[in-house]
């Protein structure tokens, strides 16, 4: 297929995934800030939301302070923030429009419909209720888009590139949550949890849609190291780093097999996947959770770069 088409597919997937992630972060932050201060401590959760979204610098260039209003405006609706939900949907559609013929009509319907409907939502963030409705809508769009892809796309290179984009973005998102919140997840002996942390832990899990899964997997009350395990190493959890890399490796291999040739992307994906499957949580804590996450984010970016160079240019 055309390199540009593959590139567009890869980015449609990334932008939709990113919009979904931003919606989750905002929803979780709204929930946390609705709690009395005594339950969540005095940290500015809105500041933390901006950090988790990975755009602290551009935010502070535009706003003096992280408040509910400014953060919602910036992350959800701002036309000036290239990674706002609004722009993610715009960009996803622009990319989709560039490859109309490579998407199924079901997928195009979802993304084009979303883009048309986006115009209905006001620029100015309204009531919490209204905002929540918007955030839910974004998540629903991403579900429908993902589901349409799953149910209607041919399993050819188009689908694999689409899935690569989705998983690279997802791995990056999960890693960013860990990067911002790692101090809450340090092991038992260095950290004493209280009611304060419980809500933070729950929020982390919610932001990756895994609160219920946690209970099913561990059948325990919330323990920070188990949360870290679930998000990093547990291949059963769809948003875990391990699961993302299972997928990345699978799709990289599928492409290599279909083209009869492999290269840097396959080697890189394999390397990261191997590392994730051989590591234990204890080892990660020992050598430093933060260091591990920082390195992972950079590895993940490198894989993205490899895929681009090998196939998309």
């Amino acid at each position, binding site marked *: 297929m*055309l*390199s*540009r088409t593959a590139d567009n597919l890869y980015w449609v997937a990334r932008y939709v995934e990113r919009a979904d992630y931003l919606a989750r972060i905002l929803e979780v932050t709204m929930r946390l800030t609705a709690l009395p201060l005594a339950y969540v401590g005095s940290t500015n959760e809105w500041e933390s939301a901006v950090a988790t979204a990975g755009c602290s610098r551009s935010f502070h260039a535009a706003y003096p302070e992280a408040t509910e209003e400014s953060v919602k405006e910036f992350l959800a609706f701002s036309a000036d923030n290239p990674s706002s939900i609004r722009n993610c949907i715009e960009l996803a559609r*622009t990319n989709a429009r560039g490859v109309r013929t490579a998407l199924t009509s079901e997928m195009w319907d979802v993304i*084009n*419909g979303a883009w048309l409907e986006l115009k209905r939502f006001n620029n100015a963030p309204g009531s919490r209720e209204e905002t929540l409705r918007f955030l839910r809508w974004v998540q629903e769009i991403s579900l429908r888009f993902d589901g349409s892809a799953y149910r209607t796309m041919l399993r050819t290179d188009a689908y694999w590139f689409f899935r690569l984009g989705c998983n690279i973005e997802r791995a990056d998102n999960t890693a960013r949550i860990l990067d911002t919140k790692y101090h809450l997840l340090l092991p038992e002996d260095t950290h004493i949890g209280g009611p304060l942390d419980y809500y933070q832990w729950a929020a982390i899990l919610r932001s990756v849609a895994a609160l219920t899964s946690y209970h099913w997997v561990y059948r325990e009350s919330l323990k920070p190291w188990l949360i870290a395990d679930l998000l990093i190493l547990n291949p059963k959890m769809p948003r875990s780093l391990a699961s993302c890399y299972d997928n990345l490796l699978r799709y990289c291999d599928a492409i290599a097999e279909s083209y009869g040739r492999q290269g840097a992307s396959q080697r890189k994906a394999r390397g990261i996947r191997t590392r994730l499957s051989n590591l234990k949580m204890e080892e990660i804590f020992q050598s430093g959770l933060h260091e591990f996450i920082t390195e992972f984010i950079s590895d993940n970016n490198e894989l993205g770069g490899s895929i681009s160079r090998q196939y*998309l*240019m």
Partner: protein
Amino acid sequence: MAECFDEMKGADGSVRPAYEGLDAWLRDLSPDVLDQRCQEAELLFRRIGITFAVYGEADSTERLIPFDVIPRILSSSEWTLLQRGLTQRVKAINMYLKDIYGRREILKAGVIPEDLVFQNQVFRPEMNAQKVPHDVYVHIAGIDIVRVGPETFYVLEDNARTPSGVSYMLENREIMMRLFPDLFSRYRVAPVENYPDELLATLKSVAPETAAAEPNVVLLSPGIYNSAYFEHSFLADKLGIELVEGRDLLVKGGVVYMRTTEGPKRVDVIYRRVDDDFLDPLAFRPDSSLGVPGLMSAYQAGQVTLANAVGTGIADDKAIYSYMPDIVKFYLSEEPILQNVPTWRCRDPKHLSHVLDKLDELVVKEVHGSGGYGMLIGPMADKGKLAAFRTRIEADPKNYIAQPTLALSTCPTWVERGVAPRHIDLRPFVLTGKDTVRIVPGGLTRVALQRGSLVVNSSQGGGTKDTWVLDT
């Protein structure tokens, strides 16, 4: 303005045979149902994403082109006449282009003044003595036709460069079949859905000799900001070919390749929807970023076929248009089956004085304008506009032609909860390949939605209709 011919009701007000079924159906139908169908149609179009960019509007890139749910119907005998006329005209156009870029017999014979060709910006010196496969220059032509009487069809314009609109022909039919299965059961309507197959066969038939047995055909689009982008992607989809932009192609060793995830792949035929000027920054406009550097060099070496060929503008230029009947006679020794609209060339002093005398009755067109811009409709213009145009014509007469204000035929059209006659035209698409000319029975009918308006261009508020050719 003269009384105009209505496609449904003849001169005596009785319903013409081809429209009987439609007339009965319309009378049976409650306006509410029709109104609802219109809304459904609009929704369907929006979903599918048919949009039409109009230059100069703020929210321009995503405007929906209006669709009228009442079809325009042509009887099979009317169509047979059109088909013969179109085939003849397009044949002559291809012979003319071969001659103009070759031996120039028509110039030597004095049929067309030499300066009209050589000093015309759309004459491409680069095509001089250039061989094109099977001598086909215009593979896809969209000939605009207007009707002024039961038997009288005029060719209004020959679009021989990159004519658009065929996606509307196909989509309109698709939507109509979804919305009005009953109406279709009252008629035997010739299908148009094989157009993409015919087009692909046409394109493959003109592949260069160096191409593989199964030539690689691509559609070259300027990209998503082009007004016809939807059509480009729609057609690429229906033809099952890659939709490429200039940046997807590269020329190496005189051969054109496209960049794929598996490395460069050779391209044999380019159905290009990019204008000549932008095709190759090394040969034409050096600032073009839409084209492919080196493409012309590969084309000249016969390594790739461009459809349509470069330089076909010298066939559909408005300055050349008025010579078209002579062109048909010169190459085919036949009388033209389809007439031209009577045209005055302002370059001719006698014509000029006539035009200036009758300015308020005529339609004046800029020789190089398109899409209804740079045009004067005399009867509709106020004094100021007439005076301004007069000055412009006097300053540069050779840049203008004039035609009588035609009483374009009308067709029943759904407007604000009622059916009323509106002016229409027709653009059938003529495909020319290695040995054959193919025309699917139908085309794009454009309708001027405003009462009394003669401007059917979608960029100026025109809409479209499904065009039915009856199959018996």
